[in-house]
């Protein structure tokens, strides 16, 4: 029983539920910044897999282009991540 209570206390403290809601707005901002690139990288990788499955001979070229696409898409999420620290 005591152990359970301790676990609950730790969980509540971690979730910030013991007092009023507190925390940084930056975290919400970063979460929002991660939505778009998340969807985008999913589309890039999914289409690359489809392309490689349809035409295995072109796999090398598709892979290079996929990494390029991922790198460009990812930049937005990473800028959000950096702003999370400096804002």
């Amino acid at each position, binding site marked *: 029983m005591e152990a*359970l209570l301790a676990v609950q206390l*730790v969980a509540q403290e971690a979730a910030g539920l013991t007092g009023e809601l507190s925390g940084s707005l930056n975290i919400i901002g970063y979460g929002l910044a991660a939505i778009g690139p998340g969807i985008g990288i999913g589309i890039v990788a999914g289409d690359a897999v489809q392309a490689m499955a349809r035409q295995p001979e072109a796999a090398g070229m598709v892979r290079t282009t996929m990494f390029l696409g991922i790198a460009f898409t*990812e930049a937005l999420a990473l800028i959000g991540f950096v702003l999370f620290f400096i804002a």
Partner: protein
Amino acid sequence: MELILASGECNTADEIICVPESVNELFENPFLHGVNRTMLLTVFAVVIVIALLHFGIVRHKKRLVPSKFGAAIESLVGFVRDEIAVGIIGPEHGLKYFPWLLSMFLFVLIGNLMEVTPLINFPITSRMWVVPAILSILTWFIFVISGFKEQGLGYLKEIAWPSTVPVAMRPLVGIIELVSTFLVRPFSLAVRLFANLVAGHLMLSLLLVSGFIFITGQGGVAKIPIGAGWLVMGLGIYAFEILVALLQAYIFTLLSAVYVQTAVHPEH
């Protein structure tokens, strides 16, 4: 472990998390005649890159049958030459840029792999003005200079007044292209490497250190399973970070090559 936690003016006994005034204190604390850890590791990375190339390639040429080490270095160098230098920039210009791309690739790779090297556990590429910013400024100079060298003033004209776009759209597209080519490119190139490595380093330190503190700290046995869970998760991320280290070195070099390629090959 205790070094990091005790670096601020705080008592680890009654307060677990000690926040230093600035995070930089952790890395820029000179311990040897003004030399700090980052400087030392940067020099170390340079020495490793030179040693790899010396013992893997230069010394190795004399052997008839390559050793395992030599073959590994050779395949790495061959990969950069065939896939990045010649594959992206093209056969007529690629080899000219190959030495620069290779040294950058190896340096960033070693810098990244320091993140997952036991007892070092600190990537020099996660310090913005040590590696990422400097290398992306170098890339900027190289692609701008080679653009002007190959195309003359037509390089700037083709970016600011692109002939493939309808005339009505040219001012708008020109401004967007100017900003994206000369400002966004070096910025995003540096931030990509930096943020990936900082994120990985933070994630590893948070998971592993908090796992350690939860297991060894005072107060009940109930927190030990939580700490163990975090340790296991941290080790999973550890394996993932090896992949990230390789991938980010590849992407940094690949994007530099792509920028040079767009500068030396005019779009028709």
